[in-house]
């Protein structure tokens, strides 16, 4: 009980936005850093994500946004600072230590801490030798030790949630990219996560298939799922996110509401990033402007 109260106190203290007091801190990052060899790709990130919050991470490629997200599932072993998932230290036994003194927690402990974290990947990462249903039931049976019938029932409910109950017996190769990604979302949701992490979930999709995946994610957000999304879909970020974080060169450059980030951008690096994005996506202009824009 004390622990929960402490967490709550921390959450409200760290909370600069308008979130109500009762909101619990789901993910807390303190001074998180990560090196790839000599390159420091994350430089001391501090971040708190609260219950039901939808956070979008944006930034140029190489800014560290995917590495940051993957660290939250311990797919990257962050080597500085600490990440707490619902108050529990993720991945390390002693996060205050650095270098070789840092000891990896036992695998069972790592799995226990992140059991409420669901992950969705850019490349879907479905298991191609299993049907859509098999992909969803696998962890229910192997990890949660559910009976075949139980797992099947749960999996069908999840596939139905993403609108794919009728594709339960299809193999991934028989599904479109958008459908595969929705199966991947169902697979993660089946484990009843409290937090969902999305790593560029629509970047590998044909443009016309992006919408169906974003729709599923919007529904999840409405239902109050805590979500962290690395995305290039600024429209999604603007509509759905509670806060948007702009990363550059491994640092949080700006954090704010979509309004603050997209409309009132102050930081020059952010302005430049958004301008590039707008230029790339403006494929049609009025006659006069288009003529003026021609080199």
């Amino acid at each position, binding site marked *: 009980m004390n622990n929960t109260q402490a967490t709550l106190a921390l959450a409200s203290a760290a909370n600069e936005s308008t979130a109500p007091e009762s909101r619990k801190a789901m993910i807390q990052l303190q001074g998180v850093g990560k090196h790839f060899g000599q390159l420091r790709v994350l430089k001391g990130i501090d971040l708190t994500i609260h219950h039901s919050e939808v956070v979008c991470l944006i930034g140029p490629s190489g800014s560290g946004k995917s590495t940051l997200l993957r660290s939250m*599932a311990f*797919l990257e072993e962050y080597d500085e600072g600490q990440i707490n998932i619902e108050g529990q230290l993720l991945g390390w036994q002693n996060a205050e230590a650095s270098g070789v003194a840092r000891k990896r927690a036992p*695998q069972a402990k790592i*799995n226990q801490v*992140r*059991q409420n*974290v*669901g*992950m969705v*990947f850019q*490349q879907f*990462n*479905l*298991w*191609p*030798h*299993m049907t859509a249903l098999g992909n969803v039931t*696998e*962890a229910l049976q*192997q*990890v949660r030790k559910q009976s075949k019938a139980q797992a099947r029932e749960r999996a069908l409910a999840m596939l139905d949630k993403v609108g794919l109950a009728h594709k339960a*017996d*299809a*193999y*991934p*190769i*028989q599904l479109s990219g958008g459908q595969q990604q929705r199966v*991947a979302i169902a*697979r*993660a949701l089946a*484990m009843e996560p409290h937090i969902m992490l999305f790593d560029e979930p629509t970047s590998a999709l044909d443009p016309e298939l992006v919408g169906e995946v974003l729709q599923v994610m919007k529904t999840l957000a409405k239902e109050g799922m805590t979500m962290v999304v690395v995305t290039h879909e600024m429209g999604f970020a603007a509509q759905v996110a509670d806060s948007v974080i702009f990363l550059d060169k491994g640092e949080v450059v700006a954090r704010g509401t979509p309004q603050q980030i997209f409309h009132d951008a102050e930081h020059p690096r952010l302005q430049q990033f958004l301008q590039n994005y707008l230029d790339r996506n403006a494929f049609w202009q009025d006659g006069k402007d288009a003529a003026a824009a021609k080199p």
Partner: protein
Amino acid sequence: MSFDPHIITDHLDDIGNGFLVTLGTWSSGVVLGLLLGLVIALAQVFGNNFVRAPLRVFIEIIRSTPFLVQLFLLYYGGPSFGLEMDPIPAGILGLAVYGSVYFAEIFRGGFESIPRGQLEAADCLGIGRLRCIVRIQLPQMAVIILPALVNLVTVLCKETAVLSIITIPELTMVLTGIGSQTFAFVETLLALCIGYLILVEACSRLGMLLETRVGRFMQRQPQ
């Protein structure tokens, strides 16, 4: 030139026994070799350098020496190291060890062919390493490595002929024996070829059946 089919028909019992011995040593050697190869591959893929380095040396030694010499060393040299074996167990072990290093290389390639992301997905869902190997990696690898496995298994089938030198009464020993007794080399050697042909052909057919079975998920159209 004469051709006397009676040479074969008169010795059908012996030839049949030889055939069974070949089939037995071959299949036991293959099963044992597959298991050994899988263990070596797993140790190489998941082990640290202390495990990998000696295995690398072992693989190189076995790959760069002839099977005949290895077999001689195991059967005739074995007793000097306190390893006394009957011919058939020695033959099976020799075949298994010889095959295992090639099996290991095939398995290793198979493990490396499964995209990392699939393993990360399993990892995130709490699926352990062993389960991941059994449920996710091996079934997919099977499709990729089956042709190479079948190929190696047929090569091992023909390598069983070498077992005759350590007095195992397999097909080659039986038929060349009949040949030298009767001087009917054409009949006996032809029968020998047919014997191996039957075994290898059966193995290839079985392999193809397996390939379609394990590769069902690769088909774009539902059946």
